[in-house]
């Protein structure tokens, strides 16, 4: 199937030439690069990158997912299965995902040196250790800012499920903070029932007229921002159906699974297709101190169907080439099985799965020892992963945001990307 965003149409080739010509002419400056002309912007918009984070809340067991150790003292009852990438095995709880592992990659050598939920969540989604009095932006805010499209009125940082506005953008500002969604259009985004379409149009025309007249004499940066916000809100109202997952056909709901996570995955596809730069969906809960195996059986059965369907759809629709997908948790789970058939918190040797964008399909980075108790090759941490996500989006992870004239590094300067994972 042809890629919708990196297709080789004549129009695209011409535009790309124009874009490269302008680059050599020095129209784009370093770092994140301000887009100098609408023509360049148009090309980059076609190359729009996106991010999907699947957050396995509570701490997914790496042994029951991406780094199984069957028939060892820590292995537990599940077996490993072959995946679509020869030589790569994952846990038998993920048979449908296994069929897509030729499109995905694994990092099996994470040591975040942390076993606390809150700190782990911060590490993995902010790319740094949490410190009192210091605020950094969430990967969603960074993505929304760095991958922002001026022609798209939709918010850039969506969190599913949820229902409120997050305070997770730090110095990037509230525009890039997360908005929680539950598969329905945003509240108050519909035209009031007692306002006809015709009257609404007339009302807007009048507003536009007065606004234009005002701008002729008293235009300022503030009024421009106000006008832009209003226009964005108006366009968002026109696109409110993007957030309504019930608009998807019944067969799609069936394919993804009729449980909440299935619905959220389907909604994520819908949002990514509509150009939203960052979507995070969560699946709960993996904090299995008790009956780890029963609960992973239940949870991953649900995850596997929906996630594999989503990866398959993103691939078939050409979106995976431009969409970074990361399956993460706050940490992994202990190799040691406790007395209640549970596994506890473990940040010493665990894994994430990622793919799409510039991630090398089928790659396996790093290694743990025979029974998964320590990393023995290519140790990385959350800072390195954060750099890697940005690199996979074609961003310079060592670049900075210009915030009021002050450079703010996008990622922890003390870490760096896993270069061998980037194609």
């Amino acid at each position, binding site marked *: 199937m042809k890629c919708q965003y990196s297709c080789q149409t004549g129009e695209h080739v011409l535009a790309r030439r124009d874009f490269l010509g302008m680059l050599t002419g020095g129209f784009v400056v370093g770092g994140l690069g301000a887009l100098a002309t609408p023509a360049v912007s148009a090309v980059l918009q076609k190359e729009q990158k996106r991010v999907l984070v699947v957050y396995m809340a509570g701490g997914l067991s790496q042994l029951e997912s991406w780094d199984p150790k069957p*028939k060892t003292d820590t292995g*537990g009852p599940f077996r490993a299965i072959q995946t679509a990438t020869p030589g790569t095995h994952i846990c038998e709880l993920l048979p449908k995902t296994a069929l897509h592992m030729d499109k995905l990659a694994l990092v099996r050598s994470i040591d975040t040196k942390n076993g606390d939920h809150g700190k782990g969540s911060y590490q993995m989604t902010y790319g740094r250790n949490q410190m009192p009095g210091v605020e950094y932006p969430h990967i969603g805010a960074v993505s929304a800012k760095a991958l922002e499209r001026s022609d798209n009125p939709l918010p850039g940082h969506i969190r599913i499920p949820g229902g409120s506005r997050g305070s997770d953008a730090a110095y990037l500002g509230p525009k890039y903070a997360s908005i929680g969604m539950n598969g329905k259009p945003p509240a108050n985004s519909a035209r009031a029932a007692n306002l006809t379409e015709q009257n609404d149009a007339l009302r807007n025309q009048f507003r536009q007229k007065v606004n234009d007249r005002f701008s002729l004499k008293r235009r300022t940066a503030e009024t421009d921002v106000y006008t832009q916000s209003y226009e964005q809100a108006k366009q968002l109202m026109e696109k409110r159906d993007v957030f309504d997952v019930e608009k998807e056909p019944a067969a799609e709901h069936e394919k993804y699974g009729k449980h909440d996570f299935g619905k959220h995955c389907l909604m994520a596809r819908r949002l990514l297709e509509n150009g939203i730069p960052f979507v995070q969906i969560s699946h709960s809960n993996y904090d299995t101190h*008790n*009956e780890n195996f*029963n*609960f992973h059986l239940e949870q991953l059965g649900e995850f596997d169907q929906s996630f594999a369907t989503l990866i398959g759809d993103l691939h078939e629709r050409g979106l995976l080439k431009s969409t970074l997908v990361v399956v993460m948790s706050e940490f992994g789970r202990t190799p040691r*099985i406790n007395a209640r058939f549970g596994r506890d918190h473990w940040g010493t040797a665990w894994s994430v799965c990622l793919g799409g964008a510039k991630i090398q399909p089928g790659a396996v980075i790093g290694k743990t020892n025979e029974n998964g108790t320590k990393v023995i090759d290519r140790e990385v941490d959350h800072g390195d992963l954060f750099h890697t996500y940005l690199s996979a989006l074609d961003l310079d992870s060592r670049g900075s945001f210009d915030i009021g004239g002050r450079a703010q590094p996008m990622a922890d300067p003390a870490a760096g990307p896993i270069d061998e994972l980037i194609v």
Partner: protein
Amino acid sequence: MSLDTKQTHVVHQWKHGKPVIACCFDPKGRYLFTSSEDYTLQRWKMDDGSKVAWPAHDSWVRDIAVLPDGETVITAGCDDQIIYWPVEGEKPEPRHTIKAHEGWVRALDVKNDGSLIASGGNDNLVKLWDPQGKLVRELKGHESNVYSVFFHPKEDLLLSGDLGGMVHQWEVKTGNLVRTFEAKDLHTYNGGQGVHYGGIRDMALSADGSILACVGLHKASNPLGAVNEPLIVQFNWSDGKELRKQPGEGVKGIGWKVEFLSDGVEICASGGSGGAYLLFFKPTEVKPFHQLKLPDTIRDMSLHPDGLQVATAHHDGHVRISRMEAKVADKPAEKK
């Protein structure tokens, strides 16, 4: 000596060294079979506690049953298989290896006359097998994983219990579903954690056949954190109505097994965050009249055919044998 549950005491604690999962006496009382997290089976000789261990399934063994003739032991694996083994021998080799279910085989039981073996699994099915490993019948009707199976000791009936707290009664000869007992108290759905929890972990029928006891857990305020308590739910066999609930007062854990003893007393093995307990209930009372705390935590229990001894499987790598009668002499529990 005679049964005296208040005098129950540990007489043997045999060390395997790896966490023990399941245990089952052979019907002749010569051996105890156990499974452990190291993927082996163990056969313990009751006379002297000597052990033979051998690799078994490609995964853990969740349940064990022995045919009444004492010649064949059957194991249920998390590798979807059941395996028939000879009881004797230094290195037992499988007699029959059967791909029994799609997913774990969680439970086994053997009909009193040895003619049928029942298995229950994660495919929500119950299956009946003959002593040669041939499939006799498949029973469909559960909507969640089958956690336990139990042949009626006198009638041609089978009971199967699932995660959702449903107990189906089947007519063995026809495979017809006769009725369903709903032990809803033994199932929890925790919306915040997104998990189903509990299930019918075991069943037993009183000697006169009047009371069906189902065991599991309740008060699961935090399933992922093991905050729950053991519970027996009793049903009146004749009309299927719930008789009473028997909670393990103040004990945290899962009720893994329940048995009726020869004097009518129910014994329940509880293990979990609160440790290991043998709880003793009079069948018509809701509170246990006696409880014995054991070391570590319990994961399974088996009643010896003499009716005086119980074996318990423990996470600390030990198998413990307790006698439910007064001590013969004041000597400490033997350690090996």
